[in-house]
């Protein structure tokens, strides 16, 4: 019982082209993609007591730490918004980015033994990270909305902030962050396959990157003179924009955004290219 037409023909030969992206193959393996998402989700919180509650607790605990350290001790202003809300909104986009980056960056090395035995489009694995992290994004979003509602209704500061109509663009912003984290993740994955040093560097890169991104401080804190440097970081605008969407404060300028989107596209396309290049022969070298 053949499942493919009899004229199906696959030709295996050394790749010559520079950019060889087989998206049709990724589509054929879409069932695998979703099962990997399921696996990530199930396996992550097996043998934990709180299970998926960690998706909510982790950002809340981080927000608590930030509030104590950066707001109470370091007294970094939060654009006049309640610090808890400010940090939580900032973490929404950042956490998604960092988690996806973290899990997609070790794609090749972590799955080396599997890749050495079976063929499937390697891109499926980092893509599954992009999708499975959407669930934690959704849960975190729900948490943010609850906290937002609490501050709006029960505190005196309720009048000082509000949704911006730009919030309808949130899904599109998520797509951009996904593309960016995938692009950088593929880069790191390819580099890790070649130089194991990157296993140590990845965590450091993510941490430093967070402080370079307006998560714990508003972009307005950076003087006009240096702001161009800050927005060269492609994550700066998305994070600042999410905060703007939820509390109506923030520096969101179209030109800055254009830089961010251009950087995202550049990193994504080059990431896919480098990943493809390394993936082809990487099993020969591990």
């Amino acid at each position, binding site marked *: 019982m053949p499942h493919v037409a009899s004229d199906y023909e696959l030709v*295996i030969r*050394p790749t010559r082209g520079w950019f060889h992206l087989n998206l049709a193959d990724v589509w054929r393996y879409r069932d695998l993609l979703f099962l990997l998402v399921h696996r990530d989700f199930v396996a992550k919180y097996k043998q934990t007591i709180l299970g998926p509650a960690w998706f909510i607790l982790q950002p809340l605990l981080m927000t608590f730490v930030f509030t104590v350290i950066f707001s109470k001790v370091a007294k970094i202003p939060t654009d006049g918004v309640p610090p808890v809300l400010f940090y939580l909104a900032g973490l929404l986009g950042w956490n998604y980015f960092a988690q996806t980056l973290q899990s997609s960056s070790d794609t090749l090395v972590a799955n080396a033994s599997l890749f050495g035995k079976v063929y499937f489009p390697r891109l499926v694995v980092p893509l599954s990270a992009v999708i499975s992290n959407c669930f934690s994004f959704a849960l975190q979003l729900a948490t943010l909305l609850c906290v937002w509602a609490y501050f709006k209704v029960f505190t005196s500061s309720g009048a000082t902030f509000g949704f911006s109509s730009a919030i309808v663009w949130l899904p599109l912003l998520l797509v951009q962050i996904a593309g960016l984290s995938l692009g950088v993740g593929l880069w790191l994955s390819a580099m890790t396959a070649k*130089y194991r040093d990157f296993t140590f560097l990845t965590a450091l890169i993510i941490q430093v990157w967070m402080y370079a991104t307006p998560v714990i401080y508003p972009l307005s804190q950076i003087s006009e003179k240096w702001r161009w440097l800050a927005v060269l970081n492609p994550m700066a605008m998305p994070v600042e924009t999410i905060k703007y969407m939820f509390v109506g404060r923030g520096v969101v300028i179209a030109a800055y955004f254009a830089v961010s989107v251009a950087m995202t596209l550049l990193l994504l396309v080059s990431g896919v290219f480098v990943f493809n290049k390394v993936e082809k022969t990487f*099993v020969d070298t591990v």
Partner: protein
Amino acid sequence: MSRAIIEVENVSKRYKLGQFNARTLRDEAEQFFRRLRRKNKAVGVPHALAESSEFWALKDVSFSVQRGEVLGIIGRNGAGKSTLLKILSRVTEPTSGEIRIRGRVASLLEVGTGFHPELTGRENIYLNGTILGMTKAEVKAKFEEIVAFAEIGKFLDTPVKRYSSGMYVRLAFAVAAHLEPEILIVDEVLAVGDAEFQKRCLRRMREVSGKDGRTVLFVSHNLAAIEALTHRAVLLRDGAIQFLGPTRACLETYLQGTADRRARVSSRLTEGRYTRVLSVDVLDEGGLPTCNYSSDNPLVLEVAIQTDGVKGMSFDIYISNSLGHRVYFYTSNLFDEIDIPASRGCYQFRLTFRPLMLASGNYSVDVATALTNIGYDDHVVEAATFQVHYFNPTGRSWDFRELDGYGSVAMTLDATVLMDRTEGGKGEELERRRRIGSELRI
């Protein structure tokens, strides 16, 4: 004849030896500086040699496979079998050449690939199935069959990390064996599981190729399984095809090659300090060196040994089969209190052994001199080789061949066979006349 389902054309694969290990940035930097320094001094060892040395795992391999055929692939370790399979299953790319495949390929390279310990048996069936290239719907259609084949029944919803290793292997093979690709690549999967399970695997493989008409590429060191399952086989040697044709002929070429190689590479495992094995010969009835032996006749070996005259030296002899397993052992001092004389000179021993019961096949003789109870002095591997062409202890027409996987040595009955009946009390004594009466008479 229809078009071949697999066409392999001049496929080669090169590995760069220097690149086998993932490097660190530090290594890279070191290399960079070393290169700079070398340029300045304009001298130095050719360090680059190690990096530039290449290794061709496959060289100009071409063959084609017809739809529904089961093709065996054999060869020594390092002959290129795994590389060929990796290229066919798209795990890695060839360096040059081209392969056309007219069907979907699934490979069964190692069972359990891609299992996740935290997931249940059920979840792993789906995950593993899709990793191996099935769609979810296809797995669903086969689900009951897979569960039945694996015999995991009530453990279906238990995480596989709690499975016994037997269950794990069964489940993994079950998933893979129920793949529905046009082309199935099987590598050494039969090496696992108990005998009963192996039998079922073989049966399933036969079904896959026979009834379902799928094409199977089968790699194994189990020559008996290769012979049972395939009609045509490829023999790889040093990355090139040495033989392509009927399985039996292919296996014979392979074993012959093993024997030839042995004759050539008789080598020393340890160099003797006090003694040296000069020559080892198998002698025929006329006392001349030969490379044939017929089982159930006395085996005559002539061993020449040179000694410094050290006291307490004896010698050991091993006979090994074509797979390198030792089947017979003799040690001169501990078995017979024979020592090499303790005065300088060359000595020749002619040893006549009682009849060996070796299956037909190729054998080699290792000889080592030993300081009794202390260790080997001169140890020569494959000092001589010989071949048994045909053997059946009762002289019947069925040839007991090592190649068939029954083992290397025949058990033969003593002249008398005792048989007890459960009812009736006393045992009856039966006489069996070897080579005369062909049936046991009761």
